[in-house]
């Protein structure tokens, strides 16, 4: 009995410490945890890490308030490893979506990488590289604190991040990256790292017709809940030929798909002079609000 009480007490202390950290510093200790602690949403930003850092829900809420959309907006973007277009991501979006939504706004931020699939995987046979990662390994996406996420994704947590604020995931799902490059050299070093990653990507991944068809399904599904808009975010021009090589005729494919579905496609790929990135691929937090405002203006025009 004495032992049982002590084990219960020790467990209680341990769980209390963890719970306190999750509640107080959830946005710092993990780059996605907060996304699964907020209530279900009616409007969402969908995409990979470009959207995760590049599109700010608070700006959308401000710019589009009173325009007939069910706001507030939630940024439900992840990284390219987690969020290629496919049935798994669609299922997760539907889990996070309020079921009775009618006037939602859905901004799908697309990059060519989101239509790639690992060469060894047969998508038609339900083989997906993102299978074991969050948000696909979760049943509960709107509970606070979310112990399911903690248990299933423990290795992605960095509890010592309570002492620093390099990356902060806001409650609205936007990832605030405070780690800005101080010099041109630092920027180029980061960009080179991504170029190297792209080249490695190119060896292992190739365009997937299945994912393109999934994009069509996703658009059609979301149209049942409101308006859908597609955007391609700014990147350093050095990436464009690489992306074209990995996913040939990407813009044409998305254009034709958006025409078929009668949704708008806003292509910002050549605007990196106006909207600067911190590493060539991700918008700097200093420009993400300006970019989001511009995107909202485009949405309002249409």
């Amino acid at each position: 009995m004495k032992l049982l009480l002590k084990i219960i007490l020790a467990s209680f202390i341990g769980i209390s410490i963890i719970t306190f950290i999750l509640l107080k510093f959830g946005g710092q200790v993990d780059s996605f945890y907060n996304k699964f602690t907020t209530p279900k949403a009616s409007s969402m930003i969908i995409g990979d890490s470009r959207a995760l850092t590049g599109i700010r829900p608070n700006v959308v809420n401000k710019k589009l308030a009173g325009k007939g959309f069910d706001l507030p907006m939630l940024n439900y973007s992840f990284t390219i490893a987690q969020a290629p277009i496919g049935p798994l991501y669609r299922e997760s979006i539907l889990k996070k979506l309020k079921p009775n939504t009618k006037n939602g706004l859905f901004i799908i931020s697309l990059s060519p990488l989101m239509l790639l699939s690992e060469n060894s995987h047969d998508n038609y046979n339900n083989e997906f590289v993102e299978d074991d990662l969050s948000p696909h390994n979760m049943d509960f996406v709107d509970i606070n604190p979310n112990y399911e996420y903690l248990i299933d994704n423990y290795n992605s947590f960095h509890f010592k991040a309570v002492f620093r604020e390099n990356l902060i995931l806001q409650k609205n799902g936007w990832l605030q990256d405070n780690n800005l490059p101080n010099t041109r050299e630092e920027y180029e070093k980061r960009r080179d790292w991504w170029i190297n990653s792209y080249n490695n990507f190119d060896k292992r991944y190739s365009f997937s017709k299945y994912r393109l068809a999934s994009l069509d399904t996703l658009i059609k599904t979301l149209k049942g809940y409101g308006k859908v808009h597609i955007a391609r975010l700014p990147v350093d021009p050095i990436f464009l030929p690489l992306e074209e090589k990995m996913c040939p005729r990407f813009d044409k494919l998305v254009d034709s798909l958006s025409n078929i579905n009668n949704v708008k496609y806003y292509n910002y790929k050549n605007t990196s002079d106006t909207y600067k990135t911190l590493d060539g691929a991700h918008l700097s937090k200093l420009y993400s609000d300006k970019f989001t405002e511009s995107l909202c203006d485009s949405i309002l025009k249409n």
Partner: protein
Amino acid sequence: MIFNSLSFVVFLVPVLLIYWSFFRKNSSYQNIILLISSLIFYAYADYRFLILLILSIGINYFLGLKIRRSEKELIQRRFLYLGLIFNIGLLIYFKYFNFFYEGFVKILNIFSIDANYNTLNILLPIGISFFTFQTLGYLIDVYNEEINPSNNLLEFSLFISYFPKILSGPIERAKSLIPQIEKKRIFSYEVFTDGLRQILWGLFAKMVIAEKCAEIVNPIFDNYENHSGSLLLIGSFFYAIQLYADFSGYSNMAIGISKLFGIQLMRNFATPFFSTNISDYWRKWHISLTTWMMDYVFTPLSFTLRSYQKRGLVISIIATFILVGFWHGANWTFIFYGLLHGLYFIPLVYSGKMNKSQIVAKGKLIPSFKELFKMLALFVLIMLTDIFFRANTVTEAFNYIASIFSYSLFKFPNELLSSSYLIGFVLLAFFILVEWKHRERHHDFEISNYNIIIRWSWYIIIFLLILFFGKSSETFIYFQF
């Protein structure tokens, strides 16, 4: 299913509950649940070799009985040889076949005999070096009449497959473990809580210290040609600590888990870096392997070579340590590692100081200057030798050492100022201080005599350190052996 994983907790808790509730009536019930759990645990690690484990249990059980029941000494010896051939054969086939095969073909090539080879794609059954040494020791002990053979297959099966130690030891001895299995285990609050403490310290050593060291060590060793001598020296320092924290952490967890079932496994590490000579170091490092080698290799060999006096002793030591090195894997790096350690004994043999074992600064807070100097000198020697343990080839190890002792040894490594290194040094200092404080105790975190507030403060500090600085990797260094 590694000890520091959630899946292991999910496995362990129900087994413990069943063990201490429904199955606590007698030893047979307890052994049944432990055996079933052990087989599930092993199958979870690698189900393909469960048959091999069961075969090994069956054959060694049968041979143990045959050795004792045979009346003629010649027949007994034949059964022993049969057992040795079977067990060593298993090891050679699964672990050393390609090594010997390659060596044989290279020798043929030296004599201009044209021979090509394709190595076989043989999977290494997990834990084979550990459970095979256990069965070998058992058969030799039965033959030497040091123990009676087990005539209970359930108990014998559990002796071999007991899950806390099947994957990476400690290499248990029949005369210590089987008597514990034969008796009914009675729940002891003190033993249980001591086990939990030992698990906590093992988790800290593995998840915080070993993983932090790995974070520093891997980039240095993987790209050693491009680093300064000073950074390479620091890399070898962290690797020596990583190796210790990884394996001692695992051993502490294994021993602690076993205590939860009321079974005491042998101590595997006794703060080995607090030694003042190499002989003392090996009395405290991987104790279950070194005592095994001492009993079954060194003692018979030195007895055979006794007429050669000190030279015979040196030969026995070197041969034993080459075998210790070779036990770790089929690679010349391990043979070199063992050879070097054997050579380090020579001054001790000739100065007659080999058998002097002591706890450094016993009863004192800090060591004397002389003791400190000896400990540091020994540590430097060990960390340089560990480079052979980490390197892929002997040439690579020599190149690494040669790069250390270059002009760049005196260049200040800027990496030292990075937060990663600074955190690493602070954590290491904490780890070493705690180990130093408890060096005279039964294990590194034996704090049962502290008052409750201090004890619980320790638990919370260790928990927070694991939470903030811990990493969970999928393996332990010694799993590959």
